[in-house]
């Protein structure tokens, strides 16, 4: 069975603590507290009770009683904080406390006939003992830790402010391939080296002399603190036999070991952008390759698109009376290396002449389009092979149109 804690024992002694009664002192005038009387030990008119358990001591003498408790506090800060709390409670006067008896941390005091009722005193003492049994030191240490972190952060900010200003430079360009390829590296917390390297250069050289390695420091949030405070008050389940010794202790999760928030939902999947999304994020522009990297060989152009300079030549006048002859004329014109812009004028002219003579044609719009195309060409250039073949094919189609049959028949009849 576990030994009783000082607080538990003190609670058990409370009934005896409140057994003070009214006394009539034969030696001193006035209502003197028997417990502080120097003739207490020799006085035969009062009833005395003393129970000393080492860390808890109860002394009842006549009209007053003292209950002193000593806590086995481990660190100075806990002792200091307890003294502070006790002093504050003592100053408040409504609590049944007095200056702690020598060798004890806390002393409750009561005297018969006080203004504060015994019931109120009992409640106050119980509450104080309950508070102390709930390990307030964990909460206190957490607050101190938090305060230390804040102070360090403040100092950091102040130091950074006083540092000389740094001019920003543009970030170096990152190759497109590097944006996507080593995505895994960004997350490689452990990034263990390949096996061969590990075999060649094992932990004997690289690891620290001790197996203890520092862990990245992060401060847990308030939610985590609250959860730990809550858990510190829960009785522990016994998983290991060897942990029984620490049954009444609770180790705080160290700030150096980060843990996720309670109830925090970790994204179930890592968002990996699709290729199209990734392209959008990077931007549709393709990376520009410096001109110096482009190999400068001979300028290559397909022969059919090769631009050729126009030949200067005088042309015979265009026939005006016969549309078929006009088409033949234009066909010859296309075959020659005449300048395209001038050719455009002749196509327009030929179209107008044909329009005058023929009532219905199905190729005039196409002639107009060709004229427009030729007019947009660069000056002093003739048709390339591709365009020439296209136009000649069209003219050949025009010439083979069925409208010519009726046209020639009509012409014959006229003749």
């Amino acid at each position, binding site marked *: 069975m576990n030994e009783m804690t000082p607080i538990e024992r003190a609670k058990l002694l409370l009934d005896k603590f409140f057994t003070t009664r009214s006394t009539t002192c034969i030696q001193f005038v006035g209502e003197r507290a028997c417990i502080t009387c120097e003739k207490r030990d020799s006085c035969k008119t009062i009833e005395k009770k003393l129970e000393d358990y080492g860390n808890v001591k109860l002394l009842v003498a006549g009209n007053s009683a003292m209950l002193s408790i000593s806590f086995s506090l481990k660190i100075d800060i806990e002792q200091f904080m307890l003294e502070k709390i006790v002093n504050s409670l003592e100053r408040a006067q409504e609590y049944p406390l007095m200056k702690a008896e020598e060798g004890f941390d806390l002393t409750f005091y009561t005297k018969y006939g006080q203004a504060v009722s015994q019931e109120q005193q009992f409640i106050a003492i119980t509450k104080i003992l309950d508070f102390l049994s709930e390990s307030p030191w964990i909460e206190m240490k957490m607050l101190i830790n938090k305060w230390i972190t804040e102070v360090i952060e403040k100092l950091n900010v102040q130091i950074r402010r006083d540092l000389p200003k740094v001019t920003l430079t543009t970030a170096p360009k990152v190759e497109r391939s590097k944006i996507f390829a080593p995505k895994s590296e960004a997350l490689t917390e452990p990034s263990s080296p390949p096996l061969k390297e590990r075999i060649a250069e094992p932990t004997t050289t690289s690891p620290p002399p001790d197996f203890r390695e520092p862990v990245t420091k992060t401060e847990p949030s308030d939610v985590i603190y609250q959860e730990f405070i809550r858990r510190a008050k829960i009785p*522990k389940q016994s998983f290991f036999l060897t942990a029984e010794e620490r049954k009444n202790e609770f*180790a705080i999760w160290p700030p150096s070991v980060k843990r996720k928030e309670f109830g925090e939902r970790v994204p*179930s999947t890592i968002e990996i952008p699709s290729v199209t999304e990734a392209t959008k994020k990077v931007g549709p522009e393709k990376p520009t390759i410096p001109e110096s990297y482009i190999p400068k060989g001979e300028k290559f152009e397909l022969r059919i698109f090769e631009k050729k300079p126009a030949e200067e030549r005088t042309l015979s006048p265009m026939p005006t009376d016969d549309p078929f002859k006009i088409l033949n004329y234009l066909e010859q014109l296309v075959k020659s290396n005449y300048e395209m812009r001038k050719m455009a004028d002749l196509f327009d002219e030929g179209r107008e002449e044909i329009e005058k003579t023929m009532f219905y044609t199905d190729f005039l719009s196409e002639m107009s389009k060709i004229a427009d195309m030729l007019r947009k060409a660069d000056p002093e250039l003739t048709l390339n092979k591709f365009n020439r073949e296209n136009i000649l094919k069209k003219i050949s189609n025009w010439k083979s149109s069925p409208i010519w049959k009726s046209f020639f028949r009509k012409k014959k009849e006229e003749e």
Partner: protein
Amino acid sequence: MSGLVLKKSGLVPTTKILIIPRWNDLLGTTFKGFYANRIVSKIHLDSVIMLSNLECAITEKTGTSYFLFGLGLYFLKFELDNGSYILDQRELNGLLMADFVYDYMATAKQITLTNDDDVIINELAIKIPIDLSKKTETQQTFIKGALMRNVFIPYKEVILRLLEQGKKQDSYSVDQTGYKILSSHPNNFNRILVSDAFKTVKHSDYIQPTAGVSNIQFLADKLLEEFFSSQELQIIKQSIKSLKGIVAKVKVDTNYLFSLLEMIRAELQVKEVIT
């Protein structure tokens, strides 16, 4: 032994099964890890199961650590970023638990059997002692029901994997491969610590990164030498080997996993009688 040790409990023999259904939930880590040079996108299951027969508490300046030795398995089901679904496992013969992790585990909300101190089923861990013979028949029936519902059915796969691993001839060969300890010690948080024997190419598969754990380090020998004498290490080895011998021998009805406890207890009793 290291001068850093302030207090040591000695090796305490207790045979029990400890299951930690979600190792990363216990440690509160968000790191999912890597597998075969790919990012792990989701961990469906990362259970730790230990059939242990030795434990030890060591108090240092920084706090207390609990060692658990026996046959263990870190069993994983996870998904890679390319959508592949992977099942992986790492054999363990030790578990190192820091005091703050233990306290966190020991204060988790109990799911059932709240009045029983021996069998614990809480939100973060499960402890089943092998020997339930001290319980009354009524208690045993009640515990059996609770275990079937809350442990043997939901964690059947993990338990069967451990048994399967234990039956393999070359498994848990502590003499050849040394130690494999899953650690939550603050200085080796969420790591598997292995012996130097793993530096050889023969065991290269084991030290490949896997989901959940931060990494695998060759620190087990160094760590154990810090805390245990060679005599103690010999006892640990013997206990692992004897447990392996038992698991290799027992025949368990896979439809009635409670028989596992009965069989192991029977084998342990036989061993006790022989020794």
